[in-house]
């Protein structure tokens, strides 16, 4: 046990000796947590629309007025030439083009039907879908109004929809992103620092010296993991109770105790992954390439930014094997929904399994003798 004390003393000294590293560990996550959630806004607003009006009738003007007053669209060009509107799409100035054909009003009156043409820049599928959907709804409502105006025939029935948004009534996107981004930042600190630190001893050669001493494998590993575990908890606390509370006004709804319990467990699993990476690399360069790769998977396949349900089945399996997935979910559940331990038992058990598997694998692989 006293060996462990000396190992810990050494690690903490080394960490605190290097101001650049310390700054990276503490400051970078805080700054990023302040800035990045502001940048993460999925809400589709201000859809830019270019309208080609070949009809130039009272009816087309009414429709355009409806679109403008809907609040979803920003009219950036009003033209009579489809080519001009299309070049707006090419230059990314417009997301959507509405073409009103010549004779819309006439056709509606004479033939009792008309047609409209919409072209959407669909590179970003979501924006295309949402833009198209909004426009369809406006046109459908416009159509409904026309009917009431022109005919006294059966108005048909209407189904209304009342929406209640639970947990986040103002649909504040930052409430959703801050807990998730904090998870990633803590994961980066733990993951990179730990794997690089261990491999550095390999590369510099000090590990040889350690290996001829009677230090036990487990003590050496604990000596490496505990300092970073502590640092991660500090970073998490800074993020949760300073940045998230002061800047974003987020106060966890659920139990802090359960939250920290899960954090503690999660960090054991993540540090296990880092340890595993370090056992497979001989140089810091290799460790870093591997960590970079893992971190990309951790971030992009965790449901942090894009929903897991819409991934192909094989990718959903990867997401299911990704510890970050569970912590992101648990954070959002506890912080925003006030979920209790009973609601996340499945997440707990899975994380226990991760912690056990990664760490035993790493320890088996960490060979003291060749």
């Amino acid at each position, binding site marked *: 046990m*006293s*060996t462990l004390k*000396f*190992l810990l003393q*050494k690690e903490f000294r080394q960490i605190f*000796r290097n101001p650049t590293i310390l700054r990276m560990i503490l400051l970078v996550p805080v700054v990023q947590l302040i800035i990045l959630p502001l940048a993460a806004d999925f809400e589709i607003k201000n859809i830019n629309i270019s309208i080609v009006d070949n009809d130039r009738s009272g009816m087309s003007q009414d429709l355009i007025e409806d679109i403008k007053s809907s609040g979803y669209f920003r009219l950036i060009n009003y033209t009579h030439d489809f080519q001009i509107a299309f070049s707006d799409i090419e230059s990314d100035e417009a997301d959507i083009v509405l073409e009103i054909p010549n004779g819309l009003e006439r056709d509606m009156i004479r033939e009792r039907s008309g047609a409209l043409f919409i072209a959407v820049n669909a590179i970003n599928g979501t924006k295309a879908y949402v833009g198209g959907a909004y426009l369809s709804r406006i046109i459908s409502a416009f159509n409904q109004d026309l009917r009431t105006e022109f005919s006294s025939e059966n108005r048909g029935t209407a189904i209304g929809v009342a929406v209640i948004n639970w947990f986040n009534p103002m649909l504040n996107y930052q409430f959703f992103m801050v807990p998730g981004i904090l998870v990633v930042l803590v994961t980066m600190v733990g993951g990179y620092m730990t794997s690089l630190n261990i491999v550095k001893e390999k590369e510099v050669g000090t590990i040889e010296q350690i290996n*001829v*001493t*009677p230090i036990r494998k487990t003590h050496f590993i604990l000596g490496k993991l505990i300092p970073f575990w502590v640092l991660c908890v500090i970073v998490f606390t800074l993020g949760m109770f300073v940045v998230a509370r002061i800047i974003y006004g987020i106060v966890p709804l659920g139990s802090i105790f359960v939250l920290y319990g899960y954090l503690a467990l999660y960090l054991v699993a993540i540090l296990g992954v880092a340890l595993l990476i370090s056992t497979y690399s001989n140089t810091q360069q290799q460790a870093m390439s591997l960590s970079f790769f893992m971190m990309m998977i951790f971030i992009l396949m965790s449901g942090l930014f894009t929903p897991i349900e819409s991934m192909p089945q094989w990718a959903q399996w990867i997401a299911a094997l990704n510890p970050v997935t569970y912590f992101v979910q648990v954070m959002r559940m506890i912080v925003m929904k006030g979920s209790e331990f009973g609601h996340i038992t499945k997440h707990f058990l899975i994380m226990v399994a991760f912690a056990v598997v990664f760490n035993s694998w790493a320890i088996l692989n960490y060979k003291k*003798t060749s």
Partner: protein
Amino acid sequence: MGDLKMISTHDLNKTFGDFVAVNNITFDVHQGEIFGFLGANGAGKTTAMRMLCGLSIPTSGEATIAGYDVYKETEKIKRNIGYMSQKFSLYEDLTVTENIRFYGGIYGLKDAEIRSRSKELIQTLELEDQRDLLVGSLPLGWKQKLAFSVAIFHHPKLVFLDEPTGGVDPVTRRQFWDLIHKASDDGITIFVTTHYMDEAEYCDRISMMVDGYIRALDSPSQLKKTYQAASMDEVFYELARGAKRTE
């Protein structure tokens, strides 16, 4: 010099695939000896030494270190040896005292013991003014002396030195050997590899490794007699020129 064997090997082998790095070496090192372990680059010295330290498991053969078996009792061996590697092995981002304290600590020395011994050590090395400097900022020669002192800080029965004086100037080398002799006087058995033949002369006995075999083992004076050489350089040249493996 007692008759206790600090190192005893019998037909010790290490192969990597087809490559026989160490080929049936058999030798003993007695307590209190300064044993020089010589050989050209690639002769198998480092591999042999790693097996003796418990860093690498032999392919076959027997060996005991301080009476402990290298297969089964590596943990006990580690408690009783010191090791200073070719690569500089102190932490450059820790200070002199912090390094000493750390290595003392992991060998299970008590705090009070560490304090008194490190005070003594710093005095011996005349590092009083540098005790709180980062090791990385010290000149190489001082680092090497410090590394050696740290390697024997826990008073091991036996210390392995792997080319300890590589790259340092003659004066420092001289001082380094004074340290080795002092440790030897204190009863620590020294096992040292080196490239410098003048250093070989300081050893009680030396072995000469060529292509994985031990080709000669005797005291320096006896070896010179056997090979009718004026200096150890000539002995070395005589033995090593037939070597097939070089780096």
